[in-house]
């Protein structure tokens, strides 16, 4: 991987240096060394906001609104998850290598089929839910269907990608054995590979549900209703007491879903969320049979959610939608390339924002992840001697609540709050994105730490190594590569999410998109969207390359 001149430096060191330079350049782009960034006059307003956290508005009317808004957000998330997992399950099979190679035995077609399905799926994935929402609004009008589809389409494509990776990484011997003994390949596929991979697929579906909850809150901001909408309204009218009531509801909703999902995954015996770069086969416990009794409950939940939000499915193929779709295609063509020169500095801003966001998220996540993992608890990895004092559990609770708060609140809301004390520019956007992703990364980091291979660490500990050295020489080296992999993966997500902080004026291409949307200038919009897609693919490519080179080193 490394070029001859750099042979004396390991790839990880090389990438690390490139990363640091990228962060420094991004800070420079954000204007950190050229102008004042902190606005001291805004602190009284920030203080009012923070002070309101201890006395949220608990009046009956507001609590009723909160409950209803929470149900709306939850129902959107359930419907969105259901559809995205359905799409992901079908498309995931068709873009897995094993399907084309072993099941269809289409060796020649393989390159064409497998790569074309993957390439097609890359597009819906690269476009943020929010843009999908605005697109569907144009063809379906004001209907709950818009928000459901806006979650289902990009998340379906992401799920398809992950499902296909899971299928491809599942051991193929049983499948081949059945096929070679004359069983029809498709039957063999359903009896071997699918059941083998089932737990990992299910585990990822739960994770998708957690993501859908966060996404449903963001979509609320553009008009799907629910908690995101209420939060934006009370923030803009400066009603902080109400704002905190909604924040707490979002916290309970996110926390509840996270806990339920973790418990279920634990019951299923698949504790790890997404096995990004571990190629060791996951431990496959025999799943608890009781788990199947959950299916009717899940089905009832999905049905209830669809009934609650009442999406009008007949709109999907209706003549009016067809006509409106034609209309929007016509108004978007031909693309208008006159604003191309403007795109270059904005693209640089966008990438800088994503780099800063992920730097904030990773460093904050790293700080909170170890306190949030159970390793310091009495009997935990780093407290084997069982010193029972109150400090570790309190630390654990504080760290976990902070992580939950960070990820529960949508990034644009964080940015709006940060705008009180920072001057406008890409920095408030980066901090908003960074705080939100910090909560997600910290949680993932903590989980990695808790799921570390125990024997080597136990051996160190039993040999009399002090806990601090076990941490330094045992825990850190074992966790770092996986932390890095998660960080790079999250960087790709941050890149896509720069759109939503652009919406609140944080700059970059998102800012331009908002302006073009509000001018109904679809011919220029399509060019900006193209630039955004290109950037997303670039970031995905860099991140993939770094991950591969780190894995091989």
């Amino acid at each position, binding site marked *: 991987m490394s070029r001859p001149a750099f042979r004396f430096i390991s790839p990880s060191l090389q990438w690390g240096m490139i990363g640091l330079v990228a962060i420094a350049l991004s800070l420079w782009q954000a204007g950190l060394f050229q102008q004042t960034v902190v606005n001291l006059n805004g602190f009284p307003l920030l203080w009012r906001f923070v002070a309101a956290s201890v006395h949220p508005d608990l009046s009956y009317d507001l609590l009723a609104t909160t409950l209803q808004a929470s149900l709306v957000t939850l129902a959107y998330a359930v419907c969105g998850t259901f559809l995205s997992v359905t799409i992901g399950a079908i498309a995931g099979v068709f873009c897995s290598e094993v399907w084309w190679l072993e099941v269809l035995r289409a060796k020649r077609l393989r390159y064409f089929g497998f790569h074309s399905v993957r390439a097609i799926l890359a597009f819906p994935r690269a476009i943020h839910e929010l843009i999908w929402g605005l697109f569907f609004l*144009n063809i379906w009008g004001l209907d709950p269907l818009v928000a459901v589809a806006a979650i289902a389409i990009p998340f379906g494509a992401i799920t398809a990608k992950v499902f296909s990776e899971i299928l491809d990484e599942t051991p193929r011997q049983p499948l081949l054995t059945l096929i070679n003994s004359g069983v029809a390949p498709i039957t063999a596929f359903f009896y071997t590979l699918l059941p083998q991979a089932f737990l990992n697929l299910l585990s990822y579906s739960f994770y998708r549900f957690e993501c859908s909850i966060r996404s449903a809150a963001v979509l609320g901001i553009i008009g799907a209703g629910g908690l995101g909408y209420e939060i934006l309204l009370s923030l803009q009218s400066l009603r902080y007491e109400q704002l905190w009531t909604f924040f707490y509801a979002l916290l309970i909703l996110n926390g509840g879903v996270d806990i339920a999902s973790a418990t279920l995954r634990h019951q299923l015996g698949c504790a790890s969320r997404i096995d990004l770069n571990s190629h060791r086969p996951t431990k496959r416990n025999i799943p608890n049979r009781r788990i199947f009794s959950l299916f009717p409950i899940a089905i009832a939940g999905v049905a209830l959610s669809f009934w609650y939000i009442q999406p009008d499915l007949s709109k999907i193929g209706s003549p009016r939608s067809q006509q409106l779709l034609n209309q929007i295609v016509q108004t978007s063509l031909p693309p208008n390339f006159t604003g191309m020169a403007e795109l270059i500095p904005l693209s640089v801003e966008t990438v800088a924002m994503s780099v800063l966001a992920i730097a904030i998220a990773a460093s904050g996540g790293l700080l909170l992840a170890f306190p949030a993992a159970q390793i310091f608890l009495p009997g935990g990895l780093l407290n084997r001697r069982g010193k029972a004092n109150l400090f570790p559990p309190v630390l654990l609770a504080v760290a976990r609540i902070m992580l939950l708060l960070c990820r529960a609140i949508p990034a644009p809301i964080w940015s709006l709050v940060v705008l009180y004390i920072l001057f406008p520019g890409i920095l408030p956007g980066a901090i908003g994105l960074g705080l939100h992703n910090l909560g997600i990364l910290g949680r993932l980091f903590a989980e990695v730490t808790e799921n570390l291979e125990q024997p080597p660490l136990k051996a160190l500990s039993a040999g009399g190594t002090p806990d601090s050295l076990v941490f330094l020489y045992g825990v850190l080296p074992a966790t770092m590569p996986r932390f890095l992999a998660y960080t790079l993966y999250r960087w790709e997500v941050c890149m896509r999410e720069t759109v939503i902080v652009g919406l609140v004026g944080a700059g970059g291409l998102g800012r331009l998109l908002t302006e073009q*949307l509000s001018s109904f200038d679809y011919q220029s919009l399509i060019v900006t969207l193209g630039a955004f897609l290109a950037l997303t693919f670039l970031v995905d490519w860099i991140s993939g390359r770094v991950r591969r080179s780190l894995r091989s080193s």
Partner: protein
Amino acid sequence: MKRLLVSGFLSLSLLPLAACSNNSSPNSSANSAAQTKTFVTGAIPDQDAEKLQRLYGKLSQYLEAELKIPVSYKPVTDYTAAVTAFKVGDLDMVWFGGLTGVQARLQVPGAEALAQRDIDAKFHSVFIANKNSGIGPINDVKELTALKGHSFTFGSESSTSGRLMPQYFLQQAGVKLEDFKGQSGFSQNHDATIALVTAGTYDAGVLNEQVWQKRLQEGKIDRSKIDVIWRSPEYYDYHWVINPSVKQRFGDDFPQKVQAALMKLDPNVPEQKEILELFGATKFVPTKNENYARIEQVGREIGKIK
């Protein structure tokens, strides 16, 4: 085998679900205005939704009694979405701002500007500044150059009083958006502009004069921190725009009927007075498409209309 059974059960149980949703669709499409006899109104969300909900609840009741047809109100959360919903036919009549009204009419041939408040024919924006910024009062449009080198925020991108006309006046003074310190902001609504300038996040900003006056009366403005530096010349702003599709559904003279009903709102009848007060008006007056020719021209100059 058991797993196969489970997956079979799963797919079977999903079938009726799909069927359910298909069955229920005629009901839910009853919400869609184009096919039914409900007259659907909407508004751009320039103030808080709670108030809009109350206001339009009352207005719908009034219109229902006057027009003898079912009237409903559908809340929309942003300016662009309001225009889009009007375009696709989900909203029959919308309370638009100057710019959004023109944008909507250009996308729906035959749409008409129907009525506006007495204040809308002579609407103003106010430029405000934080006292610490050192920006003094401005007496003439040319003096807006004083804002160069300061940070500045507009309201929503599509707001007439919070963005379009202010940008036009700035242009007349020779101030470009690049002349501000950093990026010019878009606070998204008028109250947020007041808050951000009070906090000093932006040195200066611009908003709807009506909102400013109201917040002054309510005592919500800290005048030791911010004040008005300039009041803009007048222009046409907010108005009702009606979709031509209502003629097929309710008769050719329906727009006139709605217009007459709005004119009839009387400040001497307590219930109607409340509606007018929520709108911040003493009465509604007729308006016509031609009144917004200047807004359209400015919109094209600024690039908000293509």
